[in-house]
C-alpha cells in the first residue's frame, strides 16, 4: 500500500479569529435595526431610498468588480450606509446613482476592496450633494403613516419631482439658520427631521457597541470623535452660550452614524492604534469647525472625507516602535 499524500503548506497551520467576510456581514447585520428605525420614522420611503442606493452599489460591484467580490459584503455595506444618510423623499434614481458612483468612483477605480482612499458611501453622498443640492436637503418630517411617501420617490430621471410631503428643517438647520434648539431627547430617539438613518442615535450606539465588543470596529475612532466634539463645543458654549452645547452637537445630524459606521471603515482609517486616535480627533475637530463657522449646517461628511485623505500621512507618522529598537529605528544600546 502506498503512503497517504500530505499537504505542503507554510506555517502557521492554524487559523483564528474573524474573517473579512464575517466582519463585513456583521456590520451589515448591525445596520438592520437602524434600517427598521428609519422605516418607523420615515415609512416606506426610507426603505425605497435605502434599497435604491444598495441596488446601485451592488449592481456596480457585480458588473465592474472582480468576479465574486460581492461575497465579501463590502458593496452591500456601502449601499445601505449611503441610503441611511439620504433624505427619505429623495427620488430613487438619484439614490441609485449615488450608490453606483460611490462604488464605481469611490472604490473600484482605485482597485476594489482595500485600495480606496475615501469612504465610498460618503463619496457617493458628496456626489449627490454636488449634483442634486435641493433634493438632498429637502427634509421630510419624521412620523406619519408607513405607506405615505415622503417625497416623489418614483420620479423619473431629470423630471421635475412633485411632492406635497410635509418637510421641515433639520435640528442642525434650525440651529444654524434660525437659532432654534431641538430637545436632546428627540435627537436621541430619532423623532426629528434628517437623513433616514442618522436620527436614531440610540440604535446607532447599540450597533456600534456590538461591533466594538466583537472587535469588528476600532472603538478608539468613535470615542475620539465624541470626546473631541464634546470638548470643543463645551469650550465654545462656555465662552458664548449661543453656540450649541455638547449634547446637541453629539446627537444631532449625522455625527453618530458617521462616527460609528463611516469613520471606522478600516480601509479608509489608519491602520495603527495611535493613528486611530489622531484620526478621530481630526474628524471631531473638523465637524465642530464646519458646523459652527462653515457655510453648511452639517459637516460630518466632509470632516471624514478630509481626514480620509490624511490617513497615509497619519499611518506614516505613527509607525510602531520595533522591539529592541528605539523610536527612530536604531538598535537600542
Amino acid at each position, binding site marked *: 500500500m502506498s503512503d497517504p499524500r500530505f499537504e505542503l503548506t507554510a506555517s502557521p497551520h492554524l*487559523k483564528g*479569529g474573524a474573517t473579512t467576510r464575517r466582519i463585513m456581514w456583521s456590520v451589515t447585520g448591525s445596520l438592520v435595526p437602524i434600517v427598521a428605525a428609519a422605516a418607523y420614522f420615515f415609512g416606506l420611503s426610507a426603505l425605497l431610498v435605502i434599497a435604491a442606493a444598495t441596488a446601485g452599489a451592488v449592481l456596480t460591484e457585480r458588473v465592474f468588480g472582480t468576479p465574486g467580490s460581492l461575497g465579501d459584503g463590502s458593496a452591500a455595506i456601502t449601499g445601505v450606509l449611503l441610503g441611511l444618510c439620504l433624505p427619505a423623499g429623495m427620488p430613487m434614481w438619484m439614490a441609485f446613482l449615488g450608490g453606483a458612483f460611490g462604488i464605481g468612483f469611490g472604490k473600484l477605480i482605485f482597485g476594489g476592496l482595500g485600495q480606496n482612499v475615501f469612504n465610498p458611501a460618503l463619496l457617493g453622498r458628496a456626489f449627490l450633494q454636488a449634483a442634486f443640492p435641493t433634493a438632498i436637503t429637502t427634509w421630510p418630517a419624521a412620523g406619519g403613516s408607513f405607506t405615505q411617501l415622503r417625497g416623489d420617490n418614483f420620479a423619473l430621471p431629470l423630471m421635475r419631482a412633485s411632492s406635497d410631503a410635509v418637510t421641515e428643517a433639520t435640528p442642525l438647520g434650525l440651529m444654524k439658520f434660525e437659532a432654534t434648539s431641538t430637545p436632546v431627547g428627540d435627537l436621541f430617539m430619532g423623532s426629528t427631521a434628517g437623513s433616514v438613518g442618522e436620527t436614531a442615535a440610540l440604535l446607532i450606539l447599540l450597533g456600534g457597541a456590538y461591533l466594538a465588543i466583537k472587535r469588528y470596529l476600532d472603538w478608539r475612532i468613535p470615542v475620539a470623535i465624541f470626546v473631541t466634539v464634546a470638548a470643543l463645543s463645551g469650550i465654545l458654549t462656555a465662552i458664548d452660550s449661543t453656540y450649541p452645547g455638547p449634547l446637541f452637537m453629539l446627537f444631532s445630524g449625522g455625527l453618530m452614524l458617521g462616527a460609528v459606521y463611516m469613520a471606522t471603515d478600516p480601509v479608509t482609517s489608519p*491602520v495603527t492604534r495611535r493613528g486611530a486616535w489622531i484620526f478621530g480627533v481630526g474628524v471631531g475637530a473638523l465637524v465642530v469647525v464646519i458646523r459652527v463657522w462653515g457655510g453648511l449646517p452639517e459637516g460630518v461628511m466632509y470632516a471624514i472625507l478630509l481626514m480620509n485623505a490624511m490617513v497615509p500621512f497619519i499611518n506614516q507618522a505613527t509607525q510602531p516602535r*520595533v522591539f529592541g529598537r528605539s523610536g527612530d529605528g536604531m538598535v537600542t544600546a
Partner: protein
Amino acid sequence: MILRSGFRHGVHPADSKHLTENVPIRRMGFPTEVVLPLRQHAGKPARVLVARGDKVERGDKIAAADGFISAPVHASATGTVAGVELWPHPDGSMAEVVRVTVERYSPQIPRPRLVPRWEGLSPEEVVKAVQEAGVVGLGGAAFPTHVKLSPPPDADVELLIVNGAECEPYLTTDHRTMAEYPERVHFGTRVMMQCLGVDRAVIGVEKNKPDAIDVLTATIPDDLDITILPLTVKYPQGAEKMLIKAITGREVPSGKLPMHVGVIVQNAGSIATIAEVFETGLPLVERIVTVTGPGVKRPSNLVVPVGSKLRDVLDFCGGLTDDVTEVLFGGPMMGAPQTDLDVPIIKGTTGVVVLTRAETERHPVYPCIHCGRCLDACPVFLNPQLLGSLAQVGRYEEMEASHLADCMVCGACSYVCPSNIPLSQMFSLGKAALQKMATKVA
C-alpha cells in the same frame, strides 16, 4: 529584577494540549533502521567518522563536531552502518545521513559511561563534556548547548531563564518532562548555573501546566536560588526575547543575543537532557517527542531513539486516521510540514502534530482591509500590513528598511489576518530573497 511584566501583543490560539498533557512518557521500541543526519543542529554539520559496513554500538560517536559551533552525532542504536548517503531531511532538503541497520535481538546496552560524572568537573570540562555528548537545544532551533555555556569573558550574565513556556499548541514534550522529571530539570539548572557562574535562575512555565508548576516548586533544591514563575498563556511566549521581556521586563536589542541584557535562556527539555547525559553517562541518543493531533490514533509522549523514521513513530502510535491532511514536525504555529514518512526524528524535533481537514481547511484570500489586527498581534511591533503590501510587489529592500530582519516568522500575523493573507510566508520569502541578493553582491 523579576518583573513578571509579560510581553505585549501576541495571540491566543486554542492550546489543544488535552490530547497528551496527562499521558505519561513511554519508551518506543527500537526500529529496524535509524537514519542519523549529520546536520541536526545550528552551525556546521558534523564530519562523518564511519563508513558502510562498520559496526557501531549505542552511544558511539559516528560524526564529530566540525569546529566550535557544531555538535557530534552518536549512534542511537547498536547495528551496522548500511550507508552514508543523501536522505530526506525534515527541513525539506536532501541531506547527508548515516543509515544504521539496527541489530535484531540486541539488548541495546550502551557502553559504560561515555560522558564523565559531573561532580568535580571544572566549568571548562563541563563545556567539553556537554559538547562531546552532542547536546543541543531541544526546543526546535537545536543551538549547540556548550556554546551557550561558554559566554565570552566580557559578557555579564546574571540570570539563567529556563524556558518551560511551551507556547505552541498541541505540544506537551516539555510539560511532561517537567512534570515527570523535575529533579532532572533542577539538576540541569544546577549544572548551567555553576558553569555560567550565576546565582539566580527562573523557570518560566505557562499556567496551563499547573501540575508541572507544583512539582517543580516542591522539588527546588535547598541550596539553589530557583524561582518557578507561572506565566499567562500567550503565543509566542516561548520565543527567547518574548520570554526575557515577560520575566525581566528587559528588551533584547535588535540583532543582539540575550546575554546582552545579562540573561541566558535554555529550554526545559534541553536542561533535563544535560542532567540526563551526566546521570546516565550516555550521549544524546534519544529524545522525548509528543506525537499528537486529531489525525493520530493514539496520541502519546514518547522517548524515541534519534533517527527513528516518522513512519515507525506513527505506527507505534496506532497509525493515522483517514482524514489526515498535514503532518508537522513541531507545533502548528511554526512547525514544518512533512511529505515523506521516511524522514527521521532529529534532535530538534519537539513533536509530531498530525492535522486533519477540520483544522486545515483552506480559506479564500480577500484583499487587505487595513484592519490593523496584524499590528496588534506582532510581538516585535512590526507593521505586517506594510511589509505584506511591499512583499506583494517584490519591494524587498524597502521591507528590509522596515525591519524585516526583526521578524521571527512566528505566524501571529497570518493567524489573525481576517483576509487570510499568508503574511508570514511572504516574510520568509522576502528574507530568502534578500539573502540571495546579499550573496550576489558579495
